[in-house]
């Protein structure tokens, strides 16, 4: 049953539809509209430093919030009984199956100035809040959409922790803080790392969430790239250069993070 030639069609497919497109991005990034080699796409990028900073900052905040909520969630879930766990995991995955545009759109009716949250606030005679079209709303949209990507990988490693290891530590005199610090935390680290990756990358590159919840106030990398390819500012060369720089920055972030995790192999979500 070992037959390595079965991989040949897919290797060819990958070469054409995975590797070649990325090579094209690099080629576009280093050429001008007339086809000549140039670095101007990169040198003209300094005007977008703010966009880069904003994107990485908002994505970082969203990832931190996801971790702060998702880690305890996964930890608590893993301690529940079999039946509750199954239902809870299904409930976490269920929104993922609804299109994320719909989920983000739903927040619009909650966050608007005359939206449901503000109606509730004025009903209680509390001051209303301006929430939509702020960076905060964008972070909320990111957290809402990508929280399952944090919970699920952490949960899947937590679930596999052998309760006997914890009991053994307790028998040897460890209190619950020590058990958490010395056993649960290190064993759950691979899940945390893959969770961070799975939240950070879509957050830093999103363009739909910003357009729905951030209005015209927030321009992020995703929006910038999109306008270069589909929008009014059509310039795929500049767009490719921005995409390339974003890809490299993300790679650097991930490399630093994985170093921090001492090369633990990332857990796969499903």
């Amino acid at each position, binding site marked *: 049953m070992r037959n390595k030639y079965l*991989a040949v069609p897919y290797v060819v*497919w990958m070469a054409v539809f995975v590797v070649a497109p990325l090579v094209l*991005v690099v080629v576009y990034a280093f050429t001008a509209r007339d086809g000549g080699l140039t670095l101007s796409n990169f040198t003209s990028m300094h005007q977008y430093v703010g966009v880069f900073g904003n994107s990485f900052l908002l994505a970082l905040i969203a990832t931190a919030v996801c971790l702060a909520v998702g880690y*305890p969630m996964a930890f608590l879930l893993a301690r529940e009984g079999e039946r509750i766990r199954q239902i809870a995991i299904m409930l976490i995955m269920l929104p993922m*199956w609804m*299109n994320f*545009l719909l989920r983000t759109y739903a927040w619009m009716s909650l966050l608007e100035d005359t939206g449901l949250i503000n109606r509730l606030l004025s009903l209680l005679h509390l001051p209303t809040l301006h929430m939509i079209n702020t960076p905060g709303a964008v972070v909320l949209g990111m957290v*809402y959409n990508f929280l399952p990507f944090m919970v699920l990988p952490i949960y899947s490693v937590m679930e596999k922790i052998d309760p006997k290891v914890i009991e053994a530590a307790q028998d040897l005199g460890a209190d619950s803080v020590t058990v958490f610090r010395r056993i649960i935390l290190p064993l759950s680290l691979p899940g945390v790392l893959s969770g961070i990756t799975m939240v950070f990358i879509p957050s830093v590159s999103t363009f739909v969430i910003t357009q729905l919840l951030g209005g015209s106030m927030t321009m992020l990398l995703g929006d910038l790239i999109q306008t270069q390819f589909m929008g009014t500012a059509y310039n795929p060369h500049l767009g490719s250069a921005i995409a390339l720089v974003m890809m490299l920055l993300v790679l650097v972030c991930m490399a630093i993070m994985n170093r921090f995790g001492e090369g633990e192999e990332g857990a796969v979500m499903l």
Partner: protein
Amino acid sequence: MKKNGVFSRAFMALVFLFLYAPIFVLVVFSFNAIKSRTTWGGFSLHWYVELFHNTRILEALRTTLTVSVLAAAIATVAGTAAAIGFYSMRRRPRGICLAVNNIPMTNADIITGVSLMLLFVLLGRQLGFKLGFGTLLIAHITFDIPYVILSVLPKLRQLDPNIYEAAQDLGATGLTAFRKVVLPEIMPGVWNGALIAFTMSIDDFVISYFTAGSKTSTLAMEIYAMTRRRISPQINALSTLLFVVVLALLVVINLRQSRQEQAARLRRATLRSPQKER
């Protein structure tokens, strides 16, 4: 381990409230009689009726389902074959292949989208085709296959290599041995891969947006266009229907899976001698 106390349960309830509050609002306002996202004007099925007369949405729904089913089916067959190929390779080439295989999964969607768009536009100019259903399908297959491979490969690794040889010793041809012995063993992985592939295709917006061209449009693209123009509560009706369908599907799949696992456990228990049971 200790059981969760009141505070822990309350925390979990809050997280679920956060996850479901917007969906609940969507569902409630799909039955609204007036065209407001925030004011309740009485119960009505008006938007559902309109939804079923909206040919653009129905057409987009058909495109989405067609491309998702086709892409998932093709990716499942191709991905399973590729997984067997990868499994048979030596360490180094396999490492390289798996690294390339990981690219579409770890790269940001927008990068996969624009890079494929560049390729399709360039090839289209050379060969004389336009972006449309074909390029959309190719893009979906490309990002589906890696998930199938990652789902099938572990099952192949768990496989006892002796059973294939045993089948051949008993006179089965290679193909029969594969069909009768190997395939049933890796089938849960194959199904799981197909399911993930289908989910990824259904849920995708960004890659479709860049690769479908201006004539073809998936449901997500149609919703995106609607949110940029005027928003009709038809979107709420549509999301409610999708939610119900997905809920039903998930329940069916969960039941099926637990039944399959039980059957597999039973089969394994009767096939193997007790000493070999891990």
